[in-house]
C-alpha cells in the first residue's frame, strides 16, 4: 500500500515539475507597453512620470467635457481628477469663519459650508451613489464608478468659476438669474456626461433607477454652488 501511494506521489511530483514556473507578470497596461518599458519607468526622470499622469487626467477631463460613448474613463480609472476637483470646489465654496470680534453673537460670517463639509458631502455622496448602482445590478467596479462620478463634476466646477467671476460685480436679480441658468446648464451637462459613461454598465430596463441618484447628487452640488454668495 505504501509503495502504491509513494508511486502516486512521485507521479504527482512529475506533474508538479511540468508546471511552468516562469512567465511574465502582466499588468493592466502591458497591452500598450512592452516588457522593457516597465523596467524603464523606474529610470525615467520624475518630470516624465508626472507629465504622463497629468496627460491621462487631462484626457479624461476632455472626455467629460465632450462626452461620447467612450470607455476611456472606465478602463483606466484614477482618483486624482476627483480629488483635484473636490479640493478646488471645497476651497472656493467655504464661507468665512465666524467673526469673534463682532458685537452681535449671531453674526456668523456669510454662513457658507466649511471645507470639511463640502469634502465629506462630495465623497460620501459618491460612495452612496456607487453602492446604489452596484446594488441595482451594475457590472462596474466600485472605484470605476467613483472615478466617473468625480470626473463628471468638472462642468459644475467650470460653472463655479464663472459664478465667482460674476460675483465680482455688484449683485442684481438679472445677475442672479444668469448664475442660476449657468449652474442649471452645468448640472444638466454633468448628469448627461455621467449617463454616457455609466449607461452601459446597467441593465437596459433599469437605467432610470440608476440615473436618479446621480441626478440628486449633482443637484445637491449645484445647490451648494448657487447658494454661494461670497462677499469678500
Amino acid at each position, binding site marked *: 500500500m505504501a509503495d502504491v501511494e509513494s508511486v502516486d506521489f512521485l507521479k504527482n511530483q512529475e506533474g508538479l515539475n511540468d508546471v511552468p514556473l516562469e512567465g511574465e507578470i502582466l499588468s493592466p497596461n502591458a497591452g500598450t507597453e512592452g516588457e522593457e518599458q516597465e523596467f524603464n519607468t523606474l529610470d525615467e526622470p520624475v518630470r516624465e512620470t508626472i507629465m504622463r499622469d497629468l496627460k491621462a487626467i487631462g484626457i479624461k477631463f476632455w472626455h467629460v467635457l465632450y462626452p461620447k460613448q467612450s470607455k476611456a474613463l472606465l478602463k483606466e480609472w484614477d482618483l486624482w481628477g476627483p480629488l483635484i476637483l473636490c479640493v478646488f470646489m471645497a476651497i472656493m465654496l467655504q*464661507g468665512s469663519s465666524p467673526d469673534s470680534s463682532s*458685537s452681535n453673537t449671531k453674526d456668523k460670517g456669510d454662513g457658507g459650508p466649511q471645507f470639511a463639509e463640502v469634502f465629506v458631502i462630495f465623497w460620501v455622496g459618491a460612495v452612496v451613489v456607487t453602492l446604489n448602482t452596484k446594488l441595482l445590478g451594475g457590472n462596474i467596479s466600485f472605484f470605476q464608478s467613483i472615478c466617473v462620478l468625480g470626473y463628471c463634476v468638472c462642468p459644475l466646477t467650470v460653472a463655479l468659476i464663472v459664478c465667482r467671476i460674476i460675483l465680482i460685480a455688484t449683485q442684481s436679480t438679472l445677475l442672479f438669474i444668469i448664475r442660476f441658468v449657468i449652474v442649471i446648464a452645468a448640472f444638466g451637462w454633468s448628469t448627461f456626461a455621467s449617463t454616457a459613461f455609466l449607461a452601459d454598465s446597467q441593465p437596459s430596463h433599469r437605467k432610470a433607477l440608476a440615473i436618479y441618484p446621480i441626478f440628486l447628487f449633482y443637484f445637491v452640488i449645484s*445647490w451648494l454652488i448657487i447658494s454661494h454668495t461670497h462677499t469678500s
Partner: protein
Amino acid sequence: MADRGQSWPTQQDESAIIDLGDVNDRDDGSDYETDMSRGPTDGSGKGSLEEDVRKRLTDNVTQMVWNAGTQQAKRAWSLYGNIDILRPYFNVEPHEVRTRLLQSFLPRMPSSEKQRAYRELYGPLMVVFTLIALLLFQMKAAEHKVEEGTLMGTAFGVCFTYWWGTAALMWFLSYVCNAHITSIQLLSLLGYGLAGHCVVILLGTLIHTSHDHLFFYLLWAVFGGLSTLKMVGVILSRTHGKSQRLILSCTIAAIHLLFLLYLHFAYHQIVEDLSRVLDSDPVVKQPEVVNNVRTVSKGEI
C-alpha cells in the same frame, strides 16, 4: 519533501478546524525551524526546563487564539459585510417603483385579507434622499444667507433618524401587539409614506405664502392624510384585536403627521429668525453705542 507531503493535506483543512496535534506537528516537523522560543539562558539549569515549557505553551496558546479570532472575524465579515445581503431589496423595475409611489396615496379599506406590503429599499431610500434635497431647496428659496453646511447636516440627520427611528419604534410595538409585519416591510411602508411629505414641501415652497399657513394646512390634511390612511390600512389588515390596532394606528398616524408639521414649521422658523437677524444689520448699532458712551463720559467730565 516527506514533511511537506505530510503537512499539505492538513493545510487544506486549516479554515475549518484547528487541530491541536497539527500545531505541535508543524513546530516539530518543519525543516526550517529555528528554536526561537528558547531565550538567552541564565546558565542555571534549575527552572529552565519549566520556563521553557511554559513559554512554548503560552506561545502556542497565543497563536491558537489569534488564529481562531482571525478566522471568526473573516467568517463574520464574509457573512455580514457582504453587499449582496441587500441586493434582493433593490430588485425592482422603474414601473414598479412608479406604481408603488402612486399607490402610497391610495388607501384601501382594511378587510380580512392582508394588504400587500413590499420588501423593497430602493424606492424608500430615493424618497428620503429626495426629501433631504427638497428641504435644502426650501431653505434656499426662503432666504439667501443661511448656514448651508449646518442645515445640510441637520436635514440629513433628521430625515434618516425619522425613517429608521420610527421604523424601530413601530417594529417594537408590532412585536408587542403581535402584528404580522417585518422590519423591512415597515421601512418600506414608512419610506413610501414620506412621498406625501415630499409633495407637500415641494408645493409649499413653490407656492409661497409667508404669513398665511392655510394653504399649507390644506396640503397637510390632503396628502399627509392620504399617505397616513394608506399606512394605517396596511397595518390594520395585519393586526388582530381592537386595542392592538388602536395603539399601532394612532402611533403611526401621530408621528407621521407631526413630522410634516415639524418639517414645515421648524425649518421655516429657523430661516425666518436668521433672516430677521441678518437683515437688521447689527454693525450700524455699534457706533451709536460708542457715541452714547462718549456723550455720557463727556457729560460726566
